[in-house]
């Protein structure tokens, strides 16, 4: 459960991360806006409350790990890392430019604070399970947090991992599905492409402890993670009901927000909308 101070800090952090994402992508022809904005609330709960980390010591051996398997949401993670002080805020302006250490998809060999290289969907799932196996072998009391996209779970590898993680009783593996219902070619929740169906029920039938929450309700996310951590004997999944492109009226729930650019006016418009929310949080949670 979040107290007032935590709630305010987490809401402000996620809004600031969203604004940084907009600034990063607006400087380029296009970027993966939608799937970045939909996970900022989750990232804020993880980096500010639930994840055991030490930003001044990114390689800390006793840290929890984060595997962002929907690697195209790298900019949201980079914004969160910079806000936590892993690297200077100014570095965010280097997204995707030649020789950058902030490539569009997460790469542990380039970016301080990134635990795993991802980008080919589905692969982060097994990598996270590998990390969880390693922690289990060593008897380490740490968690691996895995972020999956809802479109990503169309990959068979995710379900190979789901079966494996349950058999291996990887109770320190906590996965999230960013259920924003959109993928590049349309919807994930209808039969038009490949219906992902009842995600929680699917994981439950694979032997996982599954919860569903509003993915923009930071209290609900925090409570679900606390419950998942207390869960024993099987891995956990938290299906997060989210809005792709969350935070800007023009990108919210828009299939085209998966990858898009900004005109100068759109950038100002998006930032102004977000600033308004930020001001509201700062006023509300005194």
């Amino acid at each position, binding site marked *: 459960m979040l107290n007032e101070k935590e709630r305010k800090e987490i809401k402000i952090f996620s809004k600031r991360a969203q604004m940084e994402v907009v600034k990063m992508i607006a400087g380029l022809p296009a970027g993966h806006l939608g799937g970045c904005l939909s996970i900022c609330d989750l990232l804020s709960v993880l980096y500010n409350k639930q994840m055991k980390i030490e930003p001044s010591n990114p390689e800390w051996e006793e840290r929890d790990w984060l595997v962002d398997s929907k690697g195209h949401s790298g900019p949201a993670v980079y914004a969160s890392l910079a806000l936590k002080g892993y690297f200077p805020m100014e570095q965010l302006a280097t997204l995707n430019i030649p020789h950058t250490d902030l490539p569009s998809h997460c790469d542990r060999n380039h970016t301080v604070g990134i635990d795993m*290289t991802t980008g*080919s969907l589905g692969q982060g799932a*097994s990598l996270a399970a*590998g*990390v969880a*196996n390693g922690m289990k072998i060593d008897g380490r009391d740490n968690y691996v947090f895995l972020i999956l996209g809802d479109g990503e779970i169309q990959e068979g*590898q995710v379900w*190979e*991992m789901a079966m494996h993680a349950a058999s*291996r009783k990887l109770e320190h593996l906590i996965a999230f599905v960013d259920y924003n219902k959109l993928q590049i070619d349309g919807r994930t929740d209808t039969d038009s492409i490949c219906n992902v169906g009842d995600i929680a029920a699917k994981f439950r039938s694979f032997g996982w402890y599954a919860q569903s929450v509003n993915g923009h309700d930071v209290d609900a996310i925090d409570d679900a993670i606390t419950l998942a951590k207390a869960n024993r004997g099987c891995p956990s999944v938290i299906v997060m009901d989210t809005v792709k492109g969350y935070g800007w009226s023009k990108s919210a729930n828009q299939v085209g927000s998966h990858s898009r650019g900004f005109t100068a006016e759109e950038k100002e418009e998006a930032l102004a909308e977000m600033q308004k929310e930020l001001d509201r949080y700062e006023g509300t949670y005194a």
Partner: protein
Amino acid sequence: MNFTLSEKHDDNPIEMRKVYCDTLIELAEKNDRICVLDADLMAAMGTKPFAEKFPERTIDCGIQEANMIGVACGLSVQGKIPFAHTFAPFCTRRACDQIFLSGAYNKANVKVIGSDPGITAAYNGGTHMPFEDMGIMRLIPGMTVIEPTDNVMLGEMVKQVSGRYGMCYLRLVRRSAPEIYKEGSTFEIGKAVPIIDGKDATVIASGYCVKEAIDAADILARKGVSVRVLDMFTWKPLDEDAVIRAAEETGAIVTAENHNIINGLGAAVSQAVARRYPVPMEYVGVQDEFGEVGPVDYLRERFGLTAEHIVAAVERVLERK
């Protein structure tokens, strides 16, 4: 490198999989980072004794090769040294993208073990007969690609790759392979073994074809042709210097491989030769075909991998010298 050839090259009664498992156990006793993964082929690979001895460091993923490679890569990023085995086509073809991205691009440290190379897949037939695995692995930046020749070299290689950080592919026969080297021989990754010296032509061979190359050299010697034989067990990084010395000193090269000649050993050797010292070449290997079912004795003829095929290739190349 310090090797001695065995006097005879009969099949070793000890199967290669036993050497593989025994070596892993020996390593794991000293190093708690060694892990073994498989995709429901531990019984076939003979690694059950490892599982019995080190159950906590054994992960049998079941029939899911992509996940197995991903889990192995995740383990390696956690500091483990995973050896992940399945039949060669199932790791190199089916889990190619996982080896490429979760492995090599991610700078992970997994030893990918592909068994039943080429015609040794025998009775499993064309679906299980990899003539492309080494080529696929060779195309991945940073991969070390090795085909251990016999039991002695296999034991050495398992030990050496365990201590060498990075992605590595080992292609190995599960059952008996001919004895080529005597116990105590040592090898260096990336250095061809100069098995026989000669001056008229060089046969650069790997794996199954090494014994055939030795036999071919004997046949040719009786015909008055002096052939150098190199065991090129490391396909990548290729021992280019040994290749170029062979080109300079013998003036003609034949490669012999239990693999498709496209993007195989012959292709790798050609690239070095064409760039640095062009000489006539011939290629003994699979001529861009799928495998088929049958005993090895049939398949070696069917795909042209015998000593006689190597002899004919040497005679052809000498005409163009």
